């Protein structure tokens, strides 16, 4: 139903403190965009700027081609679900959901229909006459979502909507939100979270924010498989991607890198001849590592600690030369590896090469 276009959007407090700068983003109709990033990266601020609760101090925000920088929140065609639900405590569920429509002077019949529809979608029909304090956390969250649905907005904004729920409820509500999105394929949603699982499972595209700007925009798997830079590489995935310093020793359609204190790894990233001898960081995800007995291995390390989680076993290696400690993740249960030396390798297309923090795949 709606497209969003952010052009050079910036946020400055008091004219001096930059929070966000030069945010450029195109959001298409029907997308569910997830903002992720470390604490304090400004993801909530960006969402609140789109909502109109924070003033945009630079650049331009368009919704459906119309510049809305100075349009009040209610007229932007957005609806927002807050982290703490923000239900009106003195109103029943029905009144909570119909408040916006009453303010918009909709007819009683219209309000009834809209509330009934939202209540049906969210299975809140039995709770319409209750006050928020008589509801459980999950129900409150559903009311908050229902309050958005009744307004039939162009854009839904979610500000960490699941962070106040316990783990089990979070999974259930996450699936509900995914189903809700599926039942409304035309609606555009923007979702802020610090939870990777939410980001990976819900998003059409993920926007990773860092250092006052956008680090990368892409589908969840793009971010996972081909991170543009070291920040995204280490931010997405758990445990974080290993970064190993090394030197390019072979160029061409595939690149060979000699690791400091280790063997030679092959990456599917292409390089030019002039890159020979360049100091790089090689990125390998713990789960992409393969134990090998052969001579073609990335490094050989002494296993310091093992953590058997059942489905996988985590291996914590001793420091490798000047690199940070390396973590490997092997499927299944492996006991008795502690204290032994293990050779690890990885398939070339799973190996990232970063020059000055930027991936060679994107050069």
């Amino acid at each position, binding site marked *: 139903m709606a497209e969003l276009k952010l052009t050079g959007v910036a946020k400055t407090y008091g004219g001096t403190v930059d929070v966000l700068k030069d945010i450029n983003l195109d959001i298409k109709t029907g997308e569910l965009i997830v903002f992720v990033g470390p604490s304090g990266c400004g993801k909530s601020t960006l969402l609140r700027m789109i*909502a*109109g*609760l924070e003033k945009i101090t630079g650049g331009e925000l368009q919704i459906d081609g119309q510049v809305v920088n100075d349009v*009040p*929140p*209610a*007229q932007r065609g*957005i*609806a*927002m679900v*807050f*982290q*703490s*639900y*923000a*239900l*009106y*405590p*003195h*109103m029943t569920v029905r009144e909570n959901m119909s*408040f*916006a429509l009453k*303010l*918009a002077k909709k007819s009683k019949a219209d309000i009834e229909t809209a509330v009934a529809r939202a209540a049906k979608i969210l299975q809140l029909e039995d709770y319409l006459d209750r006050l928020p304090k008589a509801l459980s956390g999950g129900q409150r969250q559903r009311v908050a979502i229902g*309050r958005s649905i009744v*307004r039939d907005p162009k854009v839904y904004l979610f500000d960490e909507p699941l962070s106040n729920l316990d783990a089990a409820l979070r999974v259930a509500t996450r699936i509900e939100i995914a189903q809700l999105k599926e039942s409304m394929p035309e609606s555009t949603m923007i979702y802020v979270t610090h939870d990777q699982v939410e980001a990976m499972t819900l998003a059409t595209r993920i926007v990773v924010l860092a250092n006052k700007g956008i680090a990368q925009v892409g589908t969840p798997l793009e971010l996972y498989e081909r991170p543009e830079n070291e920040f995204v590489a280490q931010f997405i995935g758990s445990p974080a991607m290993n970064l190993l310093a090394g030197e390019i020793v072979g160029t061409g359609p595939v690149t060979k890198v000699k690791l400091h204190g280790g063997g030679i790894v092959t990456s599917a990233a292409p390089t030019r001849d002039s890159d020979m001898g360049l100091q790089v960081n090689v990125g390998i995800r713990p789960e992409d590592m393969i134990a090998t007995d052969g001579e073609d291995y990335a490094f050989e390390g002494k296993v310091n600690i093992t953590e058997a989680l059942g489905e996988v076993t985590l291996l914590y290696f001793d420091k490798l030369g000047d690199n940070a400690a390396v973590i490997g993740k092997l499927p299944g249960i492996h006991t008795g590896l502690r204290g032994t030396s293990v050779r690890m390798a990885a398939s070339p297309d799973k190996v990232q090469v970063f020059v000055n923090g930027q991936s060679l795949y994107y050069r």
Partner: protein
Amino acid sequence: MNPALQGLMTIIIGVGGCVAYFYFSNQFLDKVLLPAKGANAGRNINRANLIRPWLFLFPAIVALGLYLAYPVVATLWYSVTDRNQGGAFVGFANYQRMMAEPKFWEALRNNMLWLIIVPAASTAFGLLAAQLTDRIKWGAFAKSLIFMPMAISFVGASVIFKLIYDTRPVDQNQIGALNALWLQFDGGIGSFLILRLLPGALMIFAAALALFMAYTNAQAIRDKGFSANAALRAVLIAILGYVVYATLGLAYGAFTNVHPYGEPQTWMTIPGWNSFLLMVVLIWIQTGFAMVILSAALRGIPEETIEAAIVDGANPFQVFFKIKMPQIAGTIVVVWTTITLVVLKVFDIVFAMTNGQWETQVLANYMFDKLFRASDWGVGSASAMVIMLLVSPILVWNVYNARKEMR
């Protein structure tokens, strides 16, 4: 001995005595009466713990009984006896005599006026001040200014306002601010705007507001059916109806009254006006109290509910009346009833400024008049009982609401 030293001695003896009482009585209980050792140690500890609260409450209970409970009973007894007959029981004769006095009815009527106007105005102004000072830089400064009258005694405030209301002959400079202001009016267009249109419009607005409140309450009765709540609402509607009638009358008066321009007025002697001018003193004092409590309550409202309302399309007035006000409704009731209690007992202001002359009498001053000037303990005690009867239900309601707020 120097009086200051005497005061210091009193404080030391009083506070020291309290500490000594709690310490030694506790020691006596634990060491002598029910020692926590020997064969019955466990039983003794349990018993001591049962006795201890009563031990500590004992001084307070005695003091409250002596200075509160006993006087109530004694006053009740005095109100049905006659001093001139050596304290003989006379039934309701005192009450009958009191009812026959026009001054009593004047006091009761004035008290009712105070009761409606002062809490309403103080709470409204307090809420307004709390809301307006919430987000501005010098809000804290403004708040401390508004709160300052709370630190002044009622008599002190009365003296200040006596000066404001003061009158001098027409050929002298007016030292009273109100008369100085009054003499600025000459009957021209400015006088019409400020003295006729403004109060008239305000009264019409108040009437409309009361009418609207009555209407919403009537709707609530219709929607939710009859219950104890509905009965309360019906009473409220009746009161609001009277308010509409009264305010419309005042509005008519504002437009038609003939004003004596150019003559200094002795404000305290103008029946009708003088009561309101006395109320201003109490409103001036109580607004600070209302503001502080309501300001704290406003701060307690979750910010996100306000943002949600803004996203929902509420304008600042709707945010205030539909989101903020309902969330602090409990606190508003507590503030309102607390001020109501102060108002019902109002004495100092009337005593210091008019002493109940020129139709400004209130119940507490009437009681004082009868008890200590006319030495008529019967009627004096009877009026005291009337005050207590009026205060008690509001007090109970106030405590009930305050406890509900704390939960």
